[in-house]
């Protein structure tokens, strides 16, 4: 009986076995890459908004404090989105005829809320609290990026769990003095530009490296232990 398979079948079968293996690996890699891409996470994409509000202009240009609009950021889990009234505090006086601001004026006139598109959107099973992060020395910029340089607001970080955990595992890498949390120009300490902190007991100390500063603040602010910080219950319930 003649051979059913030609010798080249050997090569073909090897090729297909390895091919499938590589294809699967490749597929996994691609899926993983897509999952981390800005297409999925939304990093760097500024969604369309009813009014092209510029944080750059208001925060950096005019020097408005974050808390002028995000009033509850230090006290509540939710930072707060300003009501139309906050916009109108100024825009009843300036740029009163700017066509770009028509939706704001319409909202004020008709007593109808503006509908902003959420930029930072966490899944509903995550319970994030702004106030505790600020109180423990995490700056706005650590999560929201250089908002003062965003003409249109976009998401700077992935907000995926691995990103959260990166800091929760080692908050020392990001802690800054409490009085600097709203400071968008703040730079982590280096030997060239040290950071001075008033520690408890009235001692002022100068730090030249982030890890030293972070460790000192970790202690100073009574931040919870490593295990507590990465516990599921910290964010999920």
């Amino acid at each position, binding site marked *: 009986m003649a051979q059913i398979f030609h010798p080249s079948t050997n090569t073909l079968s090897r090729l297909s076995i390895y091919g499938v293996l590589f294809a699967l690996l490749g597929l996994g890699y691609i899926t993983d890459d897509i999952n981390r891409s800005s297409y999925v996470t939304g990093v760097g994409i500024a969604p369309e908004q009813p009014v092209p509000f510029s944080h750059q202009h208001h925060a950096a240009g005019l020097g408005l404090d974050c808390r002028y609009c995000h009033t509850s950021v230090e006290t509540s889990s939710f930072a707060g989105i300003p009501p139309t009234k906050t916009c109108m505090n100024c825009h009843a006086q300036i740029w009163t005829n700017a066509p770009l601001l028509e939706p704001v004026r319409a909202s004020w006139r008709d007593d109808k809320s503006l509908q902003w*598109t959420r930029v930072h959107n966490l899944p509903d099973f995550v*319970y994030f609290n702004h106030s505790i992060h600020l109180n423990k020395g995490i700056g706005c910029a650590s999560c929201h990026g250089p908002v003062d340089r965003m003409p249109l607001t976009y998401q700077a970080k992935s907000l995926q769990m691995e990103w959260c955990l990166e800091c929760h595992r080692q908050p020392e890498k990001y802690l800054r003095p409490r009085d600097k949390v709203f400071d968008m120009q703040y730079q982590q300490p280096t030997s060239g530009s040290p950071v001075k902190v008033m520690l408890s007991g009235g001692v002022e100390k100068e730090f030249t490296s982030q890890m030293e500063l972070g460790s000192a603040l970790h202690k100073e602010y009574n931040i919870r232990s490593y295990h507590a910080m990465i516990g599921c219950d910290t964010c999920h319930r």
Partner: protein
Amino acid sequence: MSDHHDELIQITAGGGKLAPPAAEKPRLELKDVQARLASAQGPRYWRSLEELSNSEGFSEMLEREFPNQAGSWLDPVGRRGFLKLMGASLALAGLTACTKMPEEAIVPYVKQPEDLVPGKPKFYATAMPFAGAATPVLVESNMYRPTKVEGNPQHPMSMGAADPFAQASILGLYDPDRSQTLSYLGETRTWGNFLGAIRAPMNAQKGMQGAGLRFLTETSTSPSLAAQIGALLKAYPQAKWYSYDPVNRDAARAGSKAAFGQYVDAHYHLEAADVVLSLDADFLSGAQFPGFLRCSRDFMARRKMEQGVKMNRLYVVESTPSTTGAKADHRLPLRASDIETFARDLSAAVTGTPAAAGAGGDARAQFIAAVARDLQQSRGASVVIPGELQTAAVHALAHSINQALGNAGKTVMYTEPVEVNPGEQTARLRELVDDLNANKVNILVMLGGNPVYNAPADFNFEQAIRKVEVSVHLSLYHDETSRLSQWHIPEAHYLESWSDARAQDGSVTIIQPLIEPLYQGKTAHEVVGAFSDQPGVNSYDLLQAYWKAQPGAGDFDGFWRRSLHDGFVSSTVLPFKNISAKADSGSASPANGAPAAAAGGLEIIFRPDPTIYDGRFNNNGWLQELPKPLTKLTWDNAVLISPALASARKLENRDVVEVELQGRKVKGAIFILPGQAENSVTLHLGYGRTKTGRTGANTGFSAYTLRTSAAPYFAGDATLAKTGDEYLLASTQSHNLIDNKRSLTGEEAEHRDLIRVASVEEFEKNPGFAHEHSEEIPRDLTLYPNYEYTENKWGMAIDLNSCVGCNACVVACQSENNIAVVGKEQVDLGRALHWIRVDTYFEGHDLANPATHFQPLPCMQCENAPCEPVCPVGATVHTTEGLNTMVYNRCVGTRYCSNNCPYKVRHFNFLLYSDYETPSLKLMRNPEVTVRSRGVMEKCTYCLQRITAGRIASEKENRPVRDGEIVTACQQTCPTSAITFGNMNDPESKVSKLKAGARNYSLLADVNTRPRTTYIAGVRNPNPELEAAAKA
């Protein structure tokens, strides 16, 4: 998380042996039960008669996690077809993880209220008007959506506690089945139409001085409503105002009239009472006893076994088992009709006149003698409490006994009635019905209530109401009465209304709304206003005008703000009256008019339902699914009979019988209740509604059908006839049974009891009685190092002495944690989701009068949690503070964890129970807790959201969490403070101190799970005299 996993699990489970379908459950054999109890091996504590019969079905209940799950393939798609579909969908399911998050809008205010901090709840004090006295509450509001009801801690009649009805009223507010439109003869109309339509008939009344005008309200305690109706009655002097509630205080009223010559309310100060005797008074249950929250707190304050506090003693004589009877040191079951004679004999014994010899058996005579002696020894520090649902004579007798014992003014105080229109309601309602039948009524205005459904059967209200020219019915639901009224006006819920109401002590709470009426509901004030000269008036203006006119309102703005803030108007507590009962009021009081059952005849007892009351909460899913304290029935009422009667009549649970009373008949299913008086049959009111919402439809039968004005609470000579049908009753009595005997045999097994209780005497002899035979495994007996909890270490201690089984914790937990309602069929399958349950254990070998114990069971938060290592996906994990938490977004629904839980406190979300569609229910949910979808395991986490909130608050202030700063939902609402939660690492915390006590014990300690929830063993205070007699 994927929605597909739970179906997969069901299939795997279905592949095994199919459990018999519900209808073929092994029947209960009472002779087995009696045989088992009589034998020496009978268990000391048991939960149901099924357990005692020790049938095969029962052991399956015990061993399997979800006994009936396998037989419940409810999907119309066949199993094979389903598997095919699943193959395809599972392949695609993995991809769902890659989808983008949907875009969401964020919608700020135009003008944000100044005092609003988004993300932080606010609390408002108000009161829930309920059956004659208001319950003072504090309501949590999230972004102006009321989400949770708590008791008002500043109010002396609540002290922070709330009953199940108040807790569940939040669901009543958002109930999508509430009436939403004003209608005339079933057609939608506007409020303006209504105002216009009543003008002409009202003008006609002006000429007749209102001779044809009648108002019918529920029992009201609102001073401003009384003033408003009073003014109207002045303008129309012939008009009349009636109040009617089916469960009312007629007997108390008539009794006080007999004893004092006037209507008074009795208030019991149980913190001052050493000996308490209840004559069918269910003062520890909350269903119908006025001021229950305060009564139970005061009573239990004397049972905490604290240094220097003498423990009180409770005697209960009752006709149908109640939670009060369960807490009694001595309980005497008597038929309801025999309680009056008991009271007469006791009165004679207490006042010294010799008791009628030979009345009742020996046990009864001994009981009377012992109680009388005990009462006499505690003159001025004892109290006799007559049941609200007993006869006027019992009340009069109780008043005279209290007077004779010098208790009046010490443990029992008298005040003016709390209600604004006091009277004997049933008799007055008859007047109204007679007028209706005589065509004397032109306009009938019904403010709340549902008389067509719940008026006495002999009144035939359904026919009478048809004779009126203009009938107006204001109510929350379009119910039986609305259907027969011309005008139906949707009522504003109390959380949507401005009004006022008195609590049981008389203090007035200004009821303030937390939300605009969802469905343009109107308040009683506005409807009454419509009949006055200012039809457009709103309740806020009315209320303010009323209080401005009151003395003491000096600086009105300040007065108003303070009253709203505190939740009560200062110095409105009713002053105590210095009156004394006529000495002969007891003996002179008229005998009960209702025909008593003949000696061997059957007696019917009517009681408000423990969870849906008189039917007003019929459409409330939380209350429908709340297991009733002793029967653990859900979604139905039943014909409750004693084991002896069941034996004699060869009746078993679920047999449908026809109950006949004076020619009136109703069909219901039998439920055998240990402790029921032998020839009494108890029927709970409130079920069998013919016009209600989707939730309450087709539940139970209406006991009102049998109830007449002559015999409102019990009636003699009924008959039971077996129909041969069966009806499914969903009782959770045998669900989540804890297998405390497994792997143990003989005597050892008998000492691994879940309930531990001793008498005072035994406790004093052996304070560590709770630890006898139970082997706590030493901490160092392990190869692995113990985890040291260095930060907070949360723990809970539950005092079994204090728990009265009122179920408030269960509803509080349901409200706090967004727990779904599953429905009757699912409850029967053992799938109820309550995170905390109250297990009821019966004790002893006497089916006619067993001792009863309650054990609230949240998650034990074991340090060595058996559930954790078996989870394949790490969805249940331990926190550094010792909580055993669930990560819902990780859970894939294998249910290994609940299979491995010895306490059965994990609950699997089998189907999509949570309603994600109904808009109003979305408003109700606690935003701090995930609304679980199907396919995940759920469990108690000691209210992790509250712990987190408390910890964050303390961390922001850089200080440790204070003791008592974090309270769990169950703890907060508990009327008797039976639950204590706190940090076990703080030796000064209340919970540490309780756990250090001698009576503290863990469930199944020898399994070495190291539960964080522990129990404080019960101590009873029996009368040595009766105890000796019982042993002899």
